[in-house]
């Protein structure tokens, strides 16, 4: 890498009285990239972000921004800005005063503040709204003002704490694209935390999946989706059908598992093969499963299944299948084409998938 990374965390750890919120997290975010931290609530991602912003002090480890350690720097002196979960726009100030707040703290002359505020509001697509009050704006506009308030300070790193959480679904979809284009426009490093995997997948250059205070995997959206490092990532990123069972046979990377319900399935092992007899989990993406009304020849995963229900949702339609013996259910993307169009409850279909597209992990903690 030619340019040094904007943000570097080295073995960052945060202990609270009775538990460890962040456990030896290390990562680098290169200049101008969009980095997401994805994890369920309570995984420690907010604590991590607040440590970067300076609102919490790490127990151990180091934190560098543009190569300089930030450990002894107070929150008001760090070259990072933060977009808060509920945006934290000051209700007692108008938009111009809000956006100019940071510049006023730095003692920038009033005339310069005015031009810079005007310019940044223009860049986020809201020119001339300086005199409006916060509550006169829509949710999406508030979002952009919150970003403008940070960007006017030209921070090295912009932190975003689930800023889309409070928006309704439609606006959220729209803001995903908008945020990504704003990031490209400002060419600033964004660190974005969310529990919503689709937000992370759509916007990010790199994503870290966080679980129980640790980073399970860092990679691009594609890597996380197609090559998950462990069972948690496989289950958390994207939809997947999950089967638990025991390993019965191993052939290179190909593993055969008998599920608890008695079905025999094959999958590709990732990161080391489990031993025979060990507990294992198999993950299969709904879109990796092919459906047919006639039995395909010699595919190891083919089992006849009964349609439990059809969940029609246009192009995203799904079908729930039940395996008659074990009762295990399977969620499959339902193509709205051909003879599958008329599929109804109670029909029997054959579902099969290429073992190379299913993932097998040894069950953790056994």
């Amino acid at each position, binding site marked *: 890498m030619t340019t040094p990374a904007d943000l570097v965390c080295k073995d960052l750890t945060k202990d609270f009285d009775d538990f460890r919120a962040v456990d030896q997290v290390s990562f680098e975010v290169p200049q101008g990239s969009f980095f997401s931290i994805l994890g369920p609530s309570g995984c420690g991602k907010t604590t991590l972000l607040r440590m970067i912003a*300076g609102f919490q002090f790490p127990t151990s480890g180091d934190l560098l921004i543009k190569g300089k350690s930030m450990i002894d720097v107070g929150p*008001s002196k760090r070259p990072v800005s*933060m977009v808060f979960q509920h945006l*934290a726009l000051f209700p*007692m100030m108008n938009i111009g005063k809000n956006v100019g*707040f940071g510049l006023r703290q*730095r003692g920038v002359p009033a005339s310069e503040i005015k031009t810079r505020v005007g310019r940044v509001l223009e860049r986020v697509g809201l020119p001339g709204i300086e005199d409006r009050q916060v509550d006169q704006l829509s949710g999406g506009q508030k979002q952009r003002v919150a970003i403008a308030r940070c960007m006017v300070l030209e921070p090295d790193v912009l932190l975003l704490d689930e800023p889309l959480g409070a928006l309704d679904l439609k606006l959220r979809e729209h803001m995903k694209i908008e945020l990504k284009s704003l990031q490209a426009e400002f060419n600033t490093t964004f660190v974005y935390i969310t529990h919503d995997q689709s937000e992370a997948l759509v916007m990010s250059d790199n994503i870290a999946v966080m679980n129980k205070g640790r980073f399970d995997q860092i990679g691009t959206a594609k890597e996380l989706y197609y090559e998950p490092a462990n069972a948690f990532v496989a289950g958390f990123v994207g939809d997947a059908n999950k089967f638990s069972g025991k390993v019965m046979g191993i052939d290179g990377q190909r593993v055969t598992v008998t599920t608890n319900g008695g079905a025999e399935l094959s999958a590709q092992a990732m990161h080391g093969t489990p031993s025979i007899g060990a507990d294992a989990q198999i993950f299969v993406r709904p879109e990796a499963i092919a459906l047919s009304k006639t039995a395909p020849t010699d595919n190891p995963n083919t089992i006849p299944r009964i349609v439990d229900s059809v969940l029609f949702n246009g192009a995203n339609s799904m079908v729930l299948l039940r395996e008659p013996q074990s009762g295990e259910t399977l969620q499959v993307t339902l193509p709205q084409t051909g003879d599958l169009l008329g599929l109804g409850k109670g029909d029997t279909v054959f579902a099969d998938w290429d073992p190379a597209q299913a993932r097998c992990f040894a069950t953790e903690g056994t």
Partner: protein
Amino acid sequence: MIPTIPQTNVLKWSYRAYVTLFFIYLALPLTVVCVFAFNDSVFPSLPWEGFTMAWFFGTEAPFIGVFNERSIMRAIGTSAFVAMWVAGLAVFVGTCNAFLFVRHDFRGKGFLYILMLLPLIIPGVILGISILVFASSVANTLEDATNMWFDGLRPGLLLVILGQFSFITTFATLVISARLQKFDPSLEEAALNLGASKWGAVRQVTLPFLFPAIMGAGVVAVLMSFENFNTTLMLVGSDSPLTITMFDKLKHGSTPVLNAVSLLLMIISAALGLLALLFQRSKE
């Protein structure tokens, strides 16, 4: 019971009649006080002798109006002086207390909070005599030790101010705390994040947010101080505030000039009340 549940008409109307009667009961004494301020008679009672403004502006005995009655005007001045000090002190200490109780966790917090609430359940007379006794014993000790006079600790305006302050602060603390509790701490963090100092964030973001509550508490404190009787009675010296002056006059038989003062008081209170209400409004 509630509008969506049908009731018999008799019940409905007798309920309404009761509530109406209640509000008449509420308004009656205040109305007569106001009306008799304009009675052209030396007693605030029937019969009605005709309308006059003499009890406000009169200059000749016995019709000396409020504005020309030296003792009453001086008492109003004293009351205003006391009220300003009480309100200022109570709001300052109340704001500090609000920050302490809302923002900090420390050992003995629960105990101190209960102690802070106690002035609400101590009768005003007791509050008055306890401060009187304590201040006097401090004064005695100091005078014995130094051979100097400590008149400030004898009944007088300083003790009146301290006595009123001692319980009005609790109200101020409760009002300001309630507002501070609604404050989203991330606003202050945002200010820090944008480069403000700790005190700068409080001054530019938190205090403006608290302003309506601080003003509201101030207005209520002024009113409570103006109206206070029980605590003041025990601590008053030669300069008496308005309520005490009026009480003395009332004991020696009343003239409608008291009605006129009362009416003025009501107008001032109503104005202050509206002011407080406006501040409450601007909260939303």
